Structures are given as C-alpha cells and as structure tokens.
C-alpha cells in the first residue's frame, strides 16, 4: 500500500498516524489481559501524570482512534465516558473531548501517610512469607474486590459491568 497524505483535516493516512491536532496517540496491548477501554483510560491518566496532557488539550477524535487501532467505537466512547465520570475530561458537543483537570488531587501529607502505612503492610506480608508475586496477587485481588463492591453499590439497577482486570 502506498502512503497517502497525512493532514490536519482529520483524514487518516494509510500509515495510521493520527492527524495533527491531538497531543497523544493511543496504543493497544492485546496480550495484557486489561480490557481495551481500560487501557485507553489508563493511557490518558498516565499521560496526565507525565505531563504529555494538560488541561485544555483535546483527546484524539473517536473516529481517528478507531481508524488507527481498529477497535470498536463504543469502546472508545466507553473510555471517554469513564474519564468524564472521573472528572478528568469534558465533552464539548461538535468539537470533541477535552482535558479539564489534572490527576494530582491527593494532598502531599495524605500521600506520605498512605506510603507509610503501605510500607508497614509490605513488611508484614514479607514476614508472613509472601514473595513478590504473592504480594502483587494479594493486592490485585483485594483491589479488584474493593472496586467491585463499590461499583455494585454505586450503579444499582444496571448490569454490573464488572472489573475485568486479569488476576496474576
């Protein structure tokens, strides 16, 4: 296939690069076990943390993401909705989705306190005989249950979409 023109008018060049106008580009890791929409959410949050995305930046258009990654448009919509629910983005009708907040919303003293209690837990787990992978497995399992319970109580009446993160 030949390469066509990339362009600022939103057309997709066959090489699949997202048109200029968007700060980030998504990628997909099909083998990670993480659902697609969640990967997109995590990549936006990651980009926010690292500073690639700032408030006011536009996220890639749904159509562009779909064309470059070959994924279902409803998946992208779900990811963008999740980001909106988290308060990180806001959609402007006819224009797209824009970043409206940053991620570092936890105050510094809280962070220090959390870190200290985490170190304590790690020492206790180590003393009980868990190795590294064991700690990760236990933590992931508890994390998943925590969000499931919270989601189950938050979204009563609609089907539990269920955390579908893989378990180590």
């Amino acid at each position, binding site marked *: 296939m030949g390469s066509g023109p990339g362009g600022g008018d939103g057309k997709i060049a066959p090489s699949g690069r997202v048109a200029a106008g968007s700060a980030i580009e998504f990628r997909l890791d099909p083998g990670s076990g993480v659902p697609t929409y969640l990967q997109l959410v995590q990549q936006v949050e990651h980009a926010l943390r690292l500073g690639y995305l700032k408030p006011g930046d536009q996220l890639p258009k*749904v159509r562009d993401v779909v064309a470059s990654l070959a994924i279902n448009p409803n998946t992208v919509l779900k990811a963008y909705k999740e980001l909106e629910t988290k308060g990180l983005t806001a*959609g402007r009708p006819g224009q797209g989705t824009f970043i409206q907040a940053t991620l570092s919303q936890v105050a510094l003293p809280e962070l220090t306190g959390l870190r200290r209690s985490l170190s304590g837990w790690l020492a206790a787990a180590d003393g009980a005989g868990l190795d590294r992978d064991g700690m990760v497995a236990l933590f992931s399992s508890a994390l998943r249950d925590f969000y499931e319970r919270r989601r189950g109580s938050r979204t009563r009446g609609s089907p539990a979409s269920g955390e579908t993160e893989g378990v180590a």
Partner: protein
Amino acid sequence: MTALTVPARAERDVSPRPVPWRRMAWVTWRQHRIALAGVAALLGAFAVYLELSGLQMHHAYAALIACHPADSTACQDAGALFTGSYGIKGVIAAILLQAVPALIGAFIGAPVLGREMETGTFRYAWTQGFGRWRWALAKLVLLAAVVTAAAGAFSLLFSWYFQPLFAVGYTIPFTPMVFDLRGVAFAAWTLTAFAIGALAGMLIRRVVPAIAATLAGYAGLAFAAGLFLRQYYTTPLVTNKPDLPGSAWAVSQWYAKDGKFAFPARGSQLVDAVMQLCHGGTGRGPGISGPGSPAQCLTQHGYTLWTNYQPGSRFWPFQWIEGGWLLALSVLLIAVTIWLVRRRAA
C-alpha cells in the same frame, strides 16, 4: 451510538422508486464490450468478404446476361463457368455462416449469467439497489436487441450477395442452408441462440459447459427445423407433372400405381422395383427421364411420379412463420431465465 459521532448520510426513501432502467445501458456495454467486439469482428470480417466477393460476382453476372445470343455455345459455356466458380464459393459461404447464430448465442448469451454465477459476482450484482431480476431483464433485452439487429442487417447483405446465384437457377431460396440466412430467419435464429445461451448459463452456472450446451442445443434445433419442420409449415401442394415450376421446393416424391401409394422415390424400395421391372436399367439415378432411364421404365409399367412441393411464392410466408415461432420460443426462454433469477437461492 451517542451524540459524539454524526452519521454522514443523505436522506433516504422508505420505499424507493426503482433505479431508472437506462442506467443498465452503460453497465451492460462495459461488461460485455469484449464479447460484442468479437461479434462485430466476426460479422465484419464476413461482411467484408461478402462485399468484395459479391461485387465480383455481380459484375460477372452482369457480363453473363449481356451475352448474345443466349443459346450459343459461347454463352452457355460462360454460364457454366459462372456457376462453376461462384456457385461453390456461395455454398461454402452459406455453410460457414450457419455457425454464426450459434457462436453469437453461445459467446454472448451464455456468459451473461453463466459468468456471474461461476465467479460469484452475482453476490455483488444482486445486492445492489437495482434489484436482481430487473438487472437480468435489462441486460438480456439490451443484448438481444443488439445482436438481433446486427444479424438482421447482415442478412440483408447476404441476400444481395446471393442474388445472382438465384437468378441463374443455381439454387432456390427455399434451400435449407440459404433459407435461414435471409429474410427474418437469420435475425430470429440469432435471437433464439442468444436466448438458449442465456438460459444455459443460468441453469449450468459455468461458462464453458454452458457454451457447449448452447452450441449443441442450437444445432439440434436448427437441424430439426430445417430438415423436418419447415417443409410442413403449410400443407404442401401435390402434382404429378414431371417438371416443377422453377423455384418450387420438392419436399418429397413417391411413385403411385392405380391411385395407390407404391414406394418413395428414393431408397431401397425404389431400387428393388427398378431391378425387378427394368432388368438393371442404365444405372443412372432415378428421376432422370431420358430414354432407357429407370424413370421412363417405371412410367411404362404404369407408375406415376407424384411430388409434394412448396411453391416459391411461399418463401415470405414461411419466413414469417419461422420468425414467429422462433420469436415466441426466445421470449419463453428469456422469461424462464428471468424467473430462475428471481427464484434462485444463493
């Protein structure tokens, strides 16, 4: 889907008007232009030959009839020379041209549906907005009209070409191999061959076998019509005069004695009778009525030769009859083809 995406669609009707018929003209032309060019080349090549050879023959004929006196040996020899050289060419041309309707029918008619089914492109063509049976009908009618018109025009040229050979009495218009090349017969046979091809293509669904089946089917029909059917379109006239009017077509001959049928004028029964009654005779063929011939011998023994014949004046009525039933058959075959298109499950 949410409001984030806006479908880019034009407005659509709930029950749309049909796509106009005329759209199929370009589609048909573009898809079949190679085959149509082949037919044009075939007819064109023959036409060039008939034109050139015909001009030669017409000149020679003109010289012939200008020859005076008509019954001198020189003019008689010129006549024999004329028929000798041009007669055989005419016969060969007529024989070769017998194949033309069959070839047109097979190579234009069979692939219309045969190729679509064989290559699977019907899955494209029959899911377009035009609709499958309208698509098939438009194609078949358009192509049928084109090949029929071309054949009709060609047969006019052939009639002009062959005229001198009729004039010198070399052959008569009713002769089977010439009858179906002239008048409306050539166009009608071409149309029928096309209809056979179209149906074969739809039934067999493979191009090459459909072509073979079309050629075979057409040949069978053409032979049956020429050899058995055509003579009886209207009841033949009967005569016992030995000589028929010039352009009459002898359908069958037989010998009768005392008002009763005895035996046909050819075949083993005749030979037996001649052997019995004429002590071997002179060995010349029956029907030649010089002294000592078997015909005269049989006449002396009381046998009369009767002939069923069609007078030459019936040429055009026969053309219309043949054209008529071929047209009806073609319409029927195409109707069946369209019905199969409507009905067929993928």
